């Protein structure tokens, strides 16, 4: 066997041997070589000292509340994300609401003026009451269409380009 100290690659064999990670056939070969090579014996001895010293360095136990802390941090993260999402939804809804409000005002202003007739308070009141629900329903329908249109367009704006 060539002396493992001759090349850096071969020195890994000595490191592996010291950490008992060398396969059996290689171990036998190396042990035969160690009988006759003082330099390699010294290397192995030094490496074993390091290995044992590191073995003695124990890390402290993980505290019992570690998992709870992890879940708490995950919880914070989730609630933060939910808050952000909530805010983003509000911001997204603002332009839709504004447009809907403008449309509603527009519809109400565009409404044809009632014919000028002699004042008949009871009938007029009845007409106004009869018209308002239709307009409101129409306005609400338009708001809903706008909302759907907005939802369709905003998230898929990148797709629509394709």
């Amino acid at each position: 066997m060539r002396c493992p100290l001759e090349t850096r690659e071969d020195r890994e064999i000595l490191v592996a041997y010291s950490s008992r990670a060398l396969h059996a056939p290689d171990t036998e070969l190396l042990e035969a070589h160690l009988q006759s090579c003082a330099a390699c014996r010294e290397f192995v001895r030094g490496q074993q000292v390091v290995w044992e010293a590191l073995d003695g360095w124990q890390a402290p136990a993980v505290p019992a509340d570690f998992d709870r802390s992890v879940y708490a941090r995950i919880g914070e993260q989730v609630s933060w994300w939910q808050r952000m999402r909530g805010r983003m939804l509000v911001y997204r809804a603002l332009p839709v609401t504004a447009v809907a409000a403008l449309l509603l005002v527009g519809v109400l202003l565009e409404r044809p003026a009632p014919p000028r007739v002699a004042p008949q308070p009871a009938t007029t009141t009845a007409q106004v009451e009869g018209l308002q629900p239709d307009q409101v329903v129409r306005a609400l329908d338009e708001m809903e269409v706008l909302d759907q249109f907005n939802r369709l367009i905003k998230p898929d704006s990148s797709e629509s380009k394709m």
Partner: protein
Amino acid sequence: MGGATAALDYDAELMLRVKDGDEASFTALLEKHRSPVVHFLYRMVQQQAVAEELAQEVFLRVYRSRGSYEPTAKFTTWLFRIATHLALNALRDGRNERNQDRLDERAEDMPALQVEDRRPSVEQSMVRQAMLDEVRRAVAALPDKQRAAVLMHKYREMEYTQIAKVLNCSESAVKSLLFRAYETLRARLAHMA
């Protein structure tokens, strides 16, 4: 280690279940890996409180990344890559700097060396404590990447290929890192023989 090997990794399977919304699988991963991660980080930064905080961050990132997780490598490779990245950043930020100077003062924070004699004398305890401090200092004096490589090799028994993936370098670079690290440690700890 390709995708096929990773597919057999049970931890990766658990992580895929976490991706599908199975919270119990995350608990299983946390239980299995909390100690290795905390211990690795403790030996990297050598301060328990910082190590715990970083380990929490590791698992938080694992959880946060569940949606985009793909088992392209062993789960532990991914896990230790996150842990190493955070540790190296923490060391770079100097978060641990002020505490390095107090290693001697913080003996109570450090566990004692494992001893065969259950009731060592005061003198023996002091000698062992001094040896432990020396080991810690020797490891702390290693360059960050060498330290990470030694800790993964020694305490996690990771193979060169896996360490290379964690550190995002070649296998030969890992061998070189380890060789230089052990050479330094041999020189510093030779008198302990």
